[in-house]
C-alpha cells in the first residue's frame, strides 16, 4: 500500500464514521419533523434531544476531519471539487449551520413558540445537509469533477447518480436514526414511544433499501466506472449491506431494537464502503487516481501521525462518551 492510499483509507474512515454517527444525528431530524403537533410530538422531540444532545458535536467533527485530511493530502482535487460543487456544498453547509445552532437554541428556549421555531429549523435543515452531501458523493463517483480547474456548476450534481446519492443519504440517515431512537425509547422505559417509531423506521428502511438497489440500474448508464466496481470488487460489500439491511428490518419488526442498531450500522457502513471500494483506485472517478492526486510525502506522513494520535486520544474518549450515554446511569432523568 502506498502512502497516498493509506491516507485515502484514513480519509475514507472519516467519511464512513461521519455517515454513521453524524448520519444518525441528522436522521433524527426526520422523526422530529414528522413527530406531529406540539402536544403529540413533545415526547418524541424530548427523546431526540436526549439521544443526540451529548454526542452531536463530537459526531460533527468527523466532517471537519474529512475536509482537513482531503485538502492536506490531496490539495488540487480538493480545490477542484470545491470549485465545481460550490452550490451543493454551500447548501449542505447552510443546513449544517442552521441545524447545529437551532438545536442548541431549542434546548434552552424559554417558550413553546420559540422552541417550535428553532425545532422546525433544526428538523428541516437536518434533511438538507445529507441530501446535498449525497449529491456531492454522486458527482465524484460519476466522474463529473475534473482533476484540476472547475467542472460544470449544475450538471455535476444535477444528474441521476447525484440525485440518487442524495435520496439514499437522507434515507440511510433516517433509517439509522430510527433504530437508535427506538432503542433509546425502550431503554428509557417508554416502549409505547418505540412502537410509534417502529412502523416509520420500517417504512424508511424498506424504501431506502429499494432505492439503493433500484439506483444500480441508472448508475450503470450514468456512472459506468463506479458500476463496474460495484459489480466486481465491491460486490461482496453490496451483498453484506443487503443482508444486514434485511436483518435490521426483521429485528426492528420483532422489536429487538438494541441488536437492530448494530445491523443497521453494518448495513450503512457496508453500502458506503461499497462506494469507496467500487471507485478504487480513483480519487475523482475517471479523472485522477489516489496516487496521482497526493500531495507531498512529508505531508502524507504527517497526516498519518496525526491520524495515529487521533486513534490513541480520540477513540478512547469517544468510547467513554458513548458508553456513558448508552448505559443506565445516563438514562436517569436529567437534573
Amino acid at each position, binding site marked *: 500500500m502506498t502512502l497516498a492510499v493509506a491516507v485515502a483509507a484514513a480519509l475514507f474512515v472519516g467519511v464512513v464514521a461521519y455517515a454513521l454517527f453524524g448520519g444518525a444525528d441528522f436522521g433524527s431530524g426526520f422523526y422530529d419533523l414528522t413527530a406531529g403537533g*406540539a*402536544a403529540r*410530538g*413533545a*415526547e418524541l422531540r*424530548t*427523546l431526540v434531544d436526549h439521544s443526540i444532545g*451529548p454526542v452531536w*458535536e*463530537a459526531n460533527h*467533527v468527523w466532517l*471537519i476531519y474529512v475536509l482537513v485530511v482531503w*485538502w*492536506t493530502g*490531496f*490539495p*488540487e482535487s*480538493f*480545490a477542484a*471539487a*470545491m*470549485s465545481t460543487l*460550490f452550490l451543493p456544498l*454551500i447548501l449542505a*453547509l*447552510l443546513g449544517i*449551520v*442552521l441545524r*447545529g*445552532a*437551532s438545536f*442548541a*437554541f431549542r434546548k*434552552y*428556549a424559554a417558550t413553546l413558540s*420559540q422552541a417550535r421555531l428553532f425545532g422546525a429549523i433544526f428538523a428541516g435543515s437536518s434533511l438538507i445537509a445529507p441530501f446535498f452531501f449525497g449529491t456531492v458523493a454522486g458527482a465524484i463517483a460519476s466522474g463529473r469533477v475534473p482533476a*484540476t480547474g*472547475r467542472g460544470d*456548476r449544475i450538471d455535476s450534481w444535477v444528474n441521476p447518480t447525484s440525485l440518487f446519492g442524495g435520496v439514499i443519504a437522507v434515507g440511510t440517515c433516517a433509517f439509522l436514526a430510527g433504530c437508535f431512537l427506538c432503542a433509546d425509547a425502550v431503554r*428509557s*422505559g*417508554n416502549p409505547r414511544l418505540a412502537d410509534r417509531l417502529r412502523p416509520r423506521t420500517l417504512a424508511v428502511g424498506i424504501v431506502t433499501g429499494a432505492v439503493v438497489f433500484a439506483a444500480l440500474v441508472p448508475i450503470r448508464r450514468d456512472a459506468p466506472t463506479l458500476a463496474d466496481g460495484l459489480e466486481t470488487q465491491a460486490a461482496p460489500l453490496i451483498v453484506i449491506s443487503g443482508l444486514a439491511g434485511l436483518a435490521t428490518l426483521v429485528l426492528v419488526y420483532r422489536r429487538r431494537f438494541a441488536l437492530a442498531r448494530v445491523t443497521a450500522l453494518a448495513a450503512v457502513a457496508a453500502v458506503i464502503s461499497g462506494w469507496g471500494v467500487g471507485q478504487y483506485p480513483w480519487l475523482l472517478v475517471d479523472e485522477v487516481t489516489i496516487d496521482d492526486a497526493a500531495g*507531498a510525502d*512529508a*505531508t502524507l506522513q504527517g*497526516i498519518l501521525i*496525526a*491520524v495515529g*494520535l*487521533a486513534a490513541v*486520544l480520540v477513540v478512547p*474518549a*469517544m468510547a467513554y*462518551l458513548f458508553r*456513558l*450515554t448508552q448505559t443506565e446511569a*445516563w438514562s436517569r*432523568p*436529567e*437534573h
Partner: protein
Amino acid sequence: MLVTDVVVQVLADPAVEPAGLLPARQQMALSLGWHIILACFGVAFPAMLFTMHLIGIRRDDPNALMLARKWGKVAAVLFAIGAVSGTVLSFEMGLLWPGLMGTYGDVLGLPFAFEGLAFFLEAIFLGIYLYGWDRIPPKRHVLMVLPMAVAGVFGTYCVIAVNAWMNVPVGFEVVDGQVTNIDPWAVLFSSAAFWQFLHMWIAAYMVVGFSVAAVYAVGMLRGRRDRRHHLGFTIPFAFASVAAVIQPVVGHLLGNRLAERQPAKLAAFELATETESPSPLRIGGFLIDGTVRWAIDIPYLGSIVARNSFTAPVEGLDTFPPEDRPPVNITHWAFQIMVGIGLLLMLSVIAYWVARWRGHDLTDRRWFLRLVAVSGVLAIIAVEAGWVATEVGRQPWVVYGFMRTSEAAGDNPGLWWVLGVTAVVYSGLTVGAIIVLRSMARRWRAGDVELPSPYGPESALASSEARGGAHRDTRGDTHGDTRGDTGEERQ
C-alpha cells in the same frame, strides 16, 4: 474636499482586483470575524469554568458550583454555534480560496489536522462534562474540563500557526513555479507562530474574562450584590487582569519583529509615508492623496516603540511599489484602535488591584462598574481590530511574498448572493443566541435553575413524565449541588 471623496480615498484599495475577490474577502471577513469571538470562548472559558468548579468542590461552596453549572450551559450554546461557524470556515477555505488550497494545501494543512484532533477532544469532553452533572463522581467530573481547556489552547496554536505561516511563509521552496521541498512541520514549529499565538491566546482571556465580568458588573449596577455576583465578577476579572497586563508586553515583542519581516505592514501601522530617522509615533490621521492629514506626531516614539531604538527608522511606504502596499488607512486605524483599547483596559485593571491593595473596593463605584460593563465589548472590538490590522496589513498577499490574494480567489459567480445569504443567516444566529442567552439569564434570576426545554405544552410533557418516558427536569430537587438555590436567586 467632499466627505464622500474622503471616504473613497480612505477605503480605496490600491490594486486592481478580479471580480470575485472583493466578495470572497468580505465573506471571509464576516464569517471569520464572527467566529473569532466564539473561538475565544472555546479557548478561555474552560479555564474559568474549571476554576469556578474547583472552588465549588474544594470549599464546598454551593454558589460556585451553581455558577459552574450555569456557565456550562452558556458554554454549550456558545460552543455549538462556534462549532458550526468553524465548519463554515473550513468549507470556505476551499469554496473561496481554491487557488490557495490547491497550491499550498499540503504545505499549510498539517496544523489543521492537529487542530481537528484538538477540536475532537474538546467536543467529546464538552459532551461528557455537560451531561456528567450528577452522573459522574464530582472529583472526576471536574477533571473533564481539563482536556477541553488544553485542547482549546492547542487548537488555537495550530490555527494561528497557519495564519503566521501566511505572514511568514516557511517549509517549502518554489522551483520553476512549482511548490516543492515541502516540510509541513516547519509551519507548526515556526517562531512566528509562537509569538502570534501568545498574542491571540492572551486576547482570548481578555475577551472572555471581561465579557463574563461585564455580565456580573451589570448585575451589581442593578443592585444585585450577593456572593454569587461577587464570585462571578472576581474569577473572570482576575483572569482578564493578568491577561490585560501581559498583553501590551507581548504585543510589543510581536511588533518588534515586523520591521524585519513585514515592513510594509509596519509602515501602514505607523502611517509612515516616508522613511524618517528617528520616526515619530503618529496618532490618528488619514492618508489622503499621498499626504497624512489630521495626525498627532510624537517625535522619537515611533522608533522607540516599533524598533526598540532612538534612531532606527520605520521604513516608509514610498519604499514599496504601489501594488505591494496594503490599504493604509484601515490598517493604521485598526492597529491604533487595538492598542488604544488594550492600554485602556490595562490601566483599568491596574487601578482596580491597586485600589484593592490599598483597601478600596472599586466595585462600590458606579463609574467603575460601568467601565467593566463595556469592557467585554471593548475587548471584542480590540480583537477584531487586531485581526483586521494583521490581515488587511498583509494585503495584497495571501502568502506573503509568494501568492497574491487575487491569485487565491476562485472564479465562481454569485459570490455576492452567497455573501448576502451569509449576512442574513449570521444575523439570525446572532439574534437567536442573544434571545436564548437573555432568556436563560432571566429564568435563572427567576429561580428556574434547570431550564427545562418546552418541547410541548405542559400537559403533554406532564403525562409523558408520569409514564417515566420523557425526561423533564424538575426544579427544587434536593441535590447537594443545587441546595439553597431557589430563594436567593430572586433578587
